[in-house]
């Protein structure tokens, strides 16, 4: 038994299954982060005082991290493009770079967290820090998820390139879509938490 349209696109919808699937999944993620953004606005508007992000957070580190994540998005899409050009070795290095950049992002985030804890700033300190830790924490979980998936596709999962290159390319595209979404979330989180 074989499920149709795992590899080829269905002519009337123009999509293969996983492509539609990932976009639906991302839609639900939009609603997840949307709810959190909207909670953030609600709480901030309702608060008597709300600190500016730049008073508490390290903007240079945040900026570096933004650049790191954007770069990882480029390497991700390059990994896919390499597969499209049938260059498996290049694919490997690009995806490898993506994974490394993601790890760098987490390490920097870790330093930021550690610095906060050292100063006795915890989620319970204020609603601002509550939001900061919850949103960045949830985002970090998404990063970790992405690392796991990408690591699989870099390592054991890449065997599929030999047996079913087209499907494998699809997988990278899907993983990429997810990864870019995580990037977009950060693109909004960064000004929201650090700059405003």
């Amino acid at each position, binding site marked *: *038994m074989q499920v149709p349209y795992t590899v080829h696109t269905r002519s009337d919808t123009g999509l293969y299954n996983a492509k539609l*699937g990932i976009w639906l999944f991302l839609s639900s993620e939009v609603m997840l982060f949307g709810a959190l953004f909207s909670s953030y606005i609600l709480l901030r508007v309702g608060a008597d005082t709300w600190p500016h992000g730049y008073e508490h957070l390290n903007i240079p580190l945040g900026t570096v991290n933004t650049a790191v994540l954007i770069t990882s998005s480029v390497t991700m899409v390059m990994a896919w493009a390499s597969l499209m050009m049938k260059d498996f070795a290049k694919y490997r290095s690009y995806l490898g770079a993506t994974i490394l950049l993601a790890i760098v992002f987490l390490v920097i985030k870790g330093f930021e967290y550690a610095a906060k804890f050292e100063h006795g700033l915890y989620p319970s300190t204020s609603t601002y820090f509550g939001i900061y830790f919850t949103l960045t924490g949830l985002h970090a979980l998404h990063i970790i998820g992405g690392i796991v998936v990408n690591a699989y596709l870099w390592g054991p999962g890449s065997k599929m390139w030999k047996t079913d290159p087209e499907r494998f390319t699809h997988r990278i595209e899907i993983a990429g879509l997810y990864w870019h979404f995580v990037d977009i979330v950060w693109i909004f989180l960064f000004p929201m938490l650090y700059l405003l």
Partner: protein
Amino acid sequence: MEHTAGLAHGEHDTSHELSFWEKYIFSQDHKVIGIQYGITALLFLLFGFTLMIIMRWQLAYPGQPIPLIGQWLGDANAPGGIMLPEFYNQLGAMHGTIMVFLGVVPLAVGAFGNYLVPLQIGAPDMAFPKLNMMSYWSYFLGGVTMLSSFFVPGGAANSGWTSYAPLATIATTGQTFWLCGMIFLITSSLLGSVNFIVTIVQLRAKGLTFMRLPFFVWAQLVTSFLLLLAFPPLEAAGVLQLMDRLAGTSFFLPSGLVISGQPLHVSGGGSPILWQHLFWFLAHPEVYVLILPAMGIVAEIIANNTRKPLWGYKSMVYATIFLGFMSFIVWAHHMFMTGMGTVISAFFQTTTMIISIPSVIILTALLLSLYGGSIRFTVPMLFATAFLPMFGIGGLTGLPLGLAPSDIHLHDTYYVIGHFHYVVAPGTLFALFAGIYYWFPKVTGRQMNNALGRIHFFGSFIFINGIFMPMFIEGLAGVSRRLYDGGQQYAHAQGVLHWNVFMSISAFCLFFFQLFFIINFFWSMKKGKKVNSDNPWDATTLEWDTPTPPPHGNFIKPLEVFRGPYEYSVPGKSRDFVPQSEQEKV
């Protein structure tokens, strides 16, 4: 390649033997997963009902020891068999949660949807079989988490199925379990809904256009969108409440709380109403998740048992889509009493009235479908016909709740309880029973016993009304819900309190009549009358084109669809039904 790709090879496919585990436990076959969902959900329904039976005892005979099981409930819950108020609140919260999230949705979507959608659209399986399996196991974990919460100190969650903050924030550990359980359940629903939408959009058989889909499939499609887009906000809310409970944040806690005389030391600045917004942003669409699949089932059964096409199929489809859409913008009708201004309440009252129109359209279409039919009162049809007026009562009583000024008197009274039980119990549950009786032969190859089925129907019909009808009387008299003693304290409740006994006895009788179903269900699996055709009901939709029970991969011949789903009694045909896949002779 385009359309026949991936059709099952039926028998050929068994080349690779599946182990017991792969076949029954970690199966990726949508039918096995459907059955797993079904059995688990039925057990949860029974469990949720049992919780309510215990509560109904307390409501009828407050402070009297619970017979039979009273002494097993433990001293922390019911010393000497007499229920404590804490325990009553746990039972209430868990009844609501279990019925909604672990019973009806998994049965309607997980079981019926999983089993039937691929069959009805002529697909070999769901689009992502592995995700499908993960979805079931995530549900299972969620269920286990919820059940285990009864055994933690302080017992299960006790802040209502709505878990309003700050009550839920300061509640016992059970609430943490509730939140974690919900996160599993939400994950399960999200995986499931992605899978359903992709399956329905991508895997339809050749010729099966959207307007030829059985109504049941449409209902599942819209339901999946509701789950996909409405659940994440509750997940967000769940994460925030978990943070409040575990990390000491105060997203839902305002400053200046004094709990039992002691100032609460939190940073404050949060909003209790935020939780309600996020909760109802899910929970209103959720109620249509409870009803749409039920309407789908009823539509299939009515078409089959009246032997005529559904009246106004297209308007039903559009109404369903519209209903799904509107359900996202009515949520605050649960919050009229939180201090809402004129403009906003006007908005939500209006959307609430608007959303009643598509329901009226669907109900009317189903009702008119009966006209001119040749109605067979089979057991599934009995349940399906009873669905109509029962849903009618439930839906109509939604109207006074939807008008804010009349909701002043009715909000949080038994009227609300009556309203929604009419839609979910004699409504959805009846539809689900109808579905079980109707598709049982496809799944098992055997019919369920007719006589037992009829006893089950009439017993259930009478007593379920006996439970829920008096709730309107109590509600109009002003009796609040969630009262441990059923309202004994209150003078305004005195005149209607005697109904509590009547309702409880009806509930016990309802429980008794479910035994006929349980016996019938298991007995018929082994001993029921064998069906002598793959299509025992002479039905038109594709699921009846498969062998019985359908093999792995479902269809053994390539499939093409030539017509709409309900071509019954077509003039000039010798038989009174024309299957969707039957080729026109040239």
